[in-house]
């Protein structure tokens, strides 16, 4: 059984679809009950055994309750965290916004991985971070920091006894990138397939699509005096 958190998100839905086609048993978690119900029923119709659990990425206590419940459902193979929140370009950085960005993209990742280690301790944890977490930039200042924090956390987590997969998507064609006009937007179904392949191979870092690995290699090693001037 695989736990998928953020199952109602653009990428999450496609990962669920792909696993359902393979007949994989899953526990799907999301915060919107109605949306989750649709995905649970769809997966069952496609022949997978599926449970749905509702909780919000910002509610760390509810996550503990959820994991304690999940372990009673059966043997867990691994956990995939797809939840994420990126503010729209015109959002003002209030304290509330900061809380939301950190909790959804970082705190919930740490919390769920901690709980996974404590109660399951076996198998894999795959987390969707982002290429945005590799270096700080003025655009999406907070999002980049949160995602970067998650990647560093995962690096440390690797030293514990579970397989850790850091998934770094570029621009994927979902609601999150609605405001961005880009020909590089990758379709969600292809992204899901690439992610599942990467998890199967237990790769350390999965770039989606693959070419971001080489783009980020260049951008990561760019000297500061150039990086600071780039308006990306």
């Amino acid at each position, binding site marked *: 059984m695989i736990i998928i958190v953020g199952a109602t998100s*653009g990428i999450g839905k496609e990962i669920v679809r792909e696993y359902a*086609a393979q007949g994989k048993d899953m526990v799907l978690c999301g915060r919107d009950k*109605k*949306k989750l119900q*649709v*995905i649970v*029923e*769809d997966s*069952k*119709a*496609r*022949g997978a055994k599926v449970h749905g659990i509702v909780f919000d990425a910002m509610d760390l206590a509810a996550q503990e309750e959820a994991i304690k419940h999940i372990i009673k459902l059966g043997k867990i193979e691994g956990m995939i965290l797809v939840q994420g929140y990126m503010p729209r370009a015109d959002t003002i950085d209030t304290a509330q916004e900061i809380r939301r960005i950190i909790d959804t993209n970082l705190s919930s990742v740490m919390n769920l991985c901690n709980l996974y280690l404590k109660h399951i301790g076996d198998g894999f944890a795959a987390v969707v971070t982002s290429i945005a977490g590799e270096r700080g930039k003025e655009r999406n200042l907070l999002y980049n920091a949160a995602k970067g924090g998650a990647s560093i956390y995962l690096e440390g987590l690797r030293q514990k006894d579970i397989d850790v997969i850091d998934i770094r998507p570029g621009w994927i064609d979902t*609601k999150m990138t*609605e405001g961005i006009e880009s020909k590089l937007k990758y379709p969600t179904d292809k992204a899901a397939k690439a992610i599942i392949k990467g998890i199967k191979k237990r790769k350390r870092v999965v770039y989606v699509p693959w070419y971001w690995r080489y783009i980020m290699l260049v951008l990561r090693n760019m000297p500061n005096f150039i990086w600071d001037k780039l308006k990306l």
Partner: protein
Amino acid sequence: MQEKTICGFGIAPTIKSEVHRVEDLAALQHTVKKSEKILATGNFRSYGDSALNEKTIDMRKLDHILAFDKESGIIKCEAGIILGDLLEVIVPQGWFVHVTPGTKYVTLGGCIASNVHGKNHHHYGSFSESVISLDIVLADGDLVKVSEKNYRDLFEATQGGMGLTGVIYAVEFKLKPIKSAFIDIEHVKCSNLDMVFDELEKAEQAYDYTVTWIDSHAKGKKMGRGIIMAGNHSIKGELKVHSKLKIPVPFMMPSILLNKLTLKLFNLFYYTFNRSKHAHVHYDTFFYPLDMIDNWNRMYGKRGFTQYQFVVPLDKGREAVRKILKLTTKKKCGSFLAVLKTFKKEDNYLSFPMEGYTLAMDFPLHNRTKSLLPKLDKIVKEYGGRLYLTKDLMMGKEMMEGYMTKEWQRIRNKYDPKHKFVSQQSKRLGL
């Protein structure tokens, strides 16, 4: 929201549209509520301008199966699901759809809006025969479940209603149990139109599915020669899903590719190299032969093409088909595809089928075609027939007299008095 250029399967005309892609029911209702003139769209397999509008809702992310009773075969799906994807789920579980159009790349919503028919209409009827209920988002954003027992007028007017009565959110319908994914087929080669009509009558007794490919270039005594392709679901063979392998047509071909000569040659070869035979083929080969060629419409080039499909009543139907074929061969406007089917009795608002013969032909959109079609319209009207809105591109408003148009408009005005749901076609036809 994205500004996109969209077009039907006929490639021309195109229109710049503000496309709203919705991912769940709440988003759909919200988009409908806040919009003035809008149209829900599927996978753009209709040929003309029936899926075109300046503001559209892309329904393709609403593609979930909401409920599936695997004992009774009753299934409910969101309208954006593509038939081919649905088949991938249901075929291995021993189910098929009762009615399928000639391509599996249509959305379920499109099947309802066009009330599609298949090769088995003479036995079973249209897609509507299998429909139990529809969930529709009305102009005010409210969701209603309609069926024969609830909002019956809306239920009937929506099937074949071209998306103009409301947005079809979900469809509950019956599936057909199958033992195998294969079809037992028979091809009957006919040397002229009379033989086609006679053999067709015989084939319909023995087979659930029949369709006839007609050589639209053959003249004189050979006019209307063709090949009847008949089939029944087989009990032998695995429940294997169709393959996703396709031959690509990666870019637009020059319009000159499909011209008088190449079309004539194609028709000649197709007729000559096909024989009468029996065979056992996969459903993909029998129902969806053209789906194997990805984007085959691009072979017509940027100029585009139209598919002219009409139906004429049984009485004098043979005479009408003969007259039309004669005119197209005379004007040297043959197409590479001319397909003949028979319909049984059906009459429902804007739904296309009526008891009689239906012929569909592809025409490249050049001037010869544009002057030919009104002449064909005249013949169709003269014989009491009508044209298929899903294929239509340029029919005159007077052709709508062949439908229960006024009755349909009354129902549409009841549920959408301000005409929120419009299309380029509805505006052109004054619907």
